[in-house]
């Protein structure tokens, strides 16, 4: 996927609702779809320190990747920022879309050289 990240309205709202419910803990999940994000799959946050970090279990991702087209991942920043942190960059992979839900919802993708993120516009259909 290049260019804007297209969300179905349902997927966008479901993601937003999950973030509201999780309060001051980070929540996370997978973005699923080919041309657009058609749905989200909430995943357990396996991090030890859920107030400031998130981690998705490799097993969950392994199962997901072979059953549906995973376009990327979303996670929340309870402190409100929607910009990737240093740790977000450290763990980022090329190809995936990373959506961060803070006060705003913003989408990011790793630059091909892997040194930084490029922001992608988010479009809700």
């Amino acid at each position: 996927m290049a260019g804007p990240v297209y969300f179905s309205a349902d997927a966008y709202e479901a993601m937003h609702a999950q973030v509201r419910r999780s309060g001051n803990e980070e929540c996370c999940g997978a973005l699923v779809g080919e041309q657009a994000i058609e749905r989200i799959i909430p995943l357990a946050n396996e991090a030890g320190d859920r107030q400031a970090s998130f981690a998705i279990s490799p097993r969950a991702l392994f199962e997901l990747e072979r059953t549906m087209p995973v376009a990327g991942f979303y996670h929340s920043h309870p402190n409100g920022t929607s910009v990737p942190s240093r740790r977000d960059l450290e763990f980022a992979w090329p190809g995936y879309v990373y959506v961060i839900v803070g006060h705003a919802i913003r989408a990011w993708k790793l630059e091909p050289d892997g040194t930084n993120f490029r922001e992608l516009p988010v479009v809700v259909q």
Partner: protein
Amino acid sequence: MTILVRVPGALSEYTGGSTEVRAEASTVREALHGLVEAWPVLRRHIFDDHGKLRGHVNVFLNEDDVRYRQGLDTPLRKDDVVTIVPSVAGGQTRAAELSAHEMARYSRHLSLPDVGLEGQQKLKASSVAIVGAGGLGSPSSLYLAAAGIGRIGLIDFDTIDVSNLQRQVLFRSDQIGASKAHTAAAELKRLNPEVEVVVHEARLTRENALDVLAGYDVIIDGTDNFPTRYLVNDACVLLGKPYIYGSILRFDGQLSVFDAQRGPCYRCLFREPPPPGLVPNCAQAGVLGVLPGIIGAGQALEAMKWILDLPGVLIGRLQLFDALTFRWREMTLRKHPQCPLCGPNPSITGLIDYDEFCGVKPMETNEAQVPEISVEELKARLDAGGKIQLVDVREPFEWDIANLSEYGAILIPLNDLRDRLNELDPNRETFVYCRSGARSQRAAELMKESGFKKVTNIAGGIQAWADRIDPSKPKY
């Protein structure tokens, strides 16, 4: 043979639209090399500059994470599928704001130039796992909780025993029999309610170690045995985390920080464990009660220095403490260029069976070689008389508590046995006992290997004798 290597669909824009490649490989490592040769753009996401697998790459062989097999050395078979699964993780930059109450609580830190507000926020943002809530874990967890570490994980499966109270200062006499981890957690929360304490009431094993320890920044080893020591070291190297090492025995203590990113790991120093039985543990050899206080507090100190990035962390330096002379000696440690774990060409890329590695697990063949009899059978044999020799392989202090000298038992401690075999008659039928039957098993094996004609181990040792034959013998 030809193996299928799969990558996530999202990477297909880098791989010409494909998500799998065929590679000639006989191990997982070779399969990954085949992958990055086909798609060089993936190399930097899979291997670091030294050619080691990056921490945020998970590799599955068919249905299994290879970390739980033999890591990159896991052999492949025909029709195997290797799948790359990214670690997806991250999170906001932690804003460890301090409340007014915390400012007051930590005011002595805030006025220290090298800690200050920024340092205190680092402590609050950090997490420490303590393996073993015992002699060493008591002082280290108490000081770290008091200092305001954000999250402390306590890993212990045991319950409080009366013999712990001589040195494990987290516990009180009215708590005997209670869970160590839960009791310790409650005590730490009482000391500092600001600290999050996570209880892992489980034995740390090769199955859970990576998952449990991955959630912490710093790992403190407060255990007393070689299998756990190697397990913690290996897991820390694989996870890229510092391992704060401490050990105590009798009047001696050791302290160091093994951080393979910046210095040697424990295996650089001791590639293999000593033979089982050579180094006694505290239960066998004793330990001065205050010694774990000194070494455990040292571990807490080093964990704090590491978190605060203060100079002088004991990386590459082993401290040896002698409580009797009150002297510290320092040994400089260097990274072993061929370390099988943290060297450039590691042969250990996943966790192994540490009980087997340390020889703790009795080998079945040996068990079969040395016959065992019960204390009742022994009593019958002794009463019947005859030309037999009865050998006690415990330590002299144990002999002084209780022994079978009335049946002609002679004392040769296990560690001296090899040198003193000439005091025994290899042709005479021999019975060996210790406290509960483990050391005597090893002694009997040694005698058997040395040509003793008939050696028998006494199951349950003198403890069983005191329980079932002669209750007047004191137990210990």
